[in-house]
């Protein structure tokens, strides 16, 4: 998908998560089962990095607390270090001044990583069509799930998280080599 990956370690070749399943006749059964297991584990232990900027933060706080609660998805603990997080939730408007910061944080995250554009400003710039706002974060980083809304209701955010979980469950998770 995106070429900007950071090599993990000299021992393992470069891993590319979120790639579509590669048909490999010999290990197909093993690969599928392995992917399902790892997908299940990863989708229920998301560590969000809430890259919070603006009004959507209010709904982010609401969705983390009761009665909406992201803890049900295993995504309760926000990790404020990009090295420890795997879900970058970009919450709110990203301006051109903030864009380098967003890019730096995304690049510092290790594979596998996913990006949720929380709110319409992160998805497409919202109604700030002017010199200051970045018209959608997908202009600078790849996005996995878009949750529109100004701000989105917590139910929409939960729907977005569940769709992301389906995506994680469906995708292949090469952990040993870049195909297995």
């Amino acid at each position, binding site marked *: 998908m995106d070429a900007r990956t950071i090599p993990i370690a000299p021992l393992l070749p470069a891993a590319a998560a979120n790639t579509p399943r590669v048909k490999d006749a010999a290990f197909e059964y093993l690969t599928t089962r392995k992917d399902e297991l790892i997908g299940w584990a990863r989708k229920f232990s998301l560590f969000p990095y809430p890259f919070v900027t603006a009004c959507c933060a209010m709904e982010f706080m609401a969705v983390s607390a009761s009665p909406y609660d992201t803890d049900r998805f295993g995504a309760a603990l926000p990790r404020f270090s990009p090295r420890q997080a795997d879900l970058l939730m970009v919450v709110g408007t990203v301006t051109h001044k903030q864009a*380098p910061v967003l890019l730096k944080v995304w690049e510092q995250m290790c594979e596998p990583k996913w990006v949720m554009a929380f709110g319409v400003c992160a998805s497409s710039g919202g109604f700030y069509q002017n*010199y200051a706002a970045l018209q959608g974060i997908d202009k600078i980083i790849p996005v996995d799930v878009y949750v529109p809304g100004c701000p989105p209701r917590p139910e929409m955010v939960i729907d977005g998280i569940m769709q992301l979980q389906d995506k994680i469950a469906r995708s292949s998770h090469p952990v040993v080599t870049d195909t297995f």
Partner: protein
Amino acid sequence: MAAARDLETLQRELVPVAGAATVSHGCFVFALAPGELAPTARRLRDEFGFDVLLDVTAVDWPGDALRFEVVHHFYSTAHKVRVRLKTRVAADEPVVDSLGALYGSAAFMERECHDMYGIGFRGNFDLRPILLYEGFVGHPLRKDYPKQREQPLVPYRD
């Protein structure tokens, strides 16, 4: 009432300096020459008790010879009344005096005014961009800056 009498004094004493005093929706408005801005602000603070500088902003009138109108708002916590000082400067030398020596709040507000309109403030040595970023060319709130001209810092992916 003491407050009203002080305000009459205010109006009477500042009018010869200001030249015109109007009341706009509960706020005294004085139009001044740029050189009189700092002395008048000092008098407002010391003699009349206007202890809070609320706001520094500018209005761009591109058709006029004196293009920018720099507007200061002051508030007196004792008299509970506001004053607006307006100054006109030309486009080729949009500089007024800074009120940083009188009010601490002037620092950030003058930075913003400089960022948005390009107004210079004599005496404020920190006019770095505050709302915009290093490398932004132009002053967006001027009427000749197109609203949608973006200056991205990060190159877009394709």
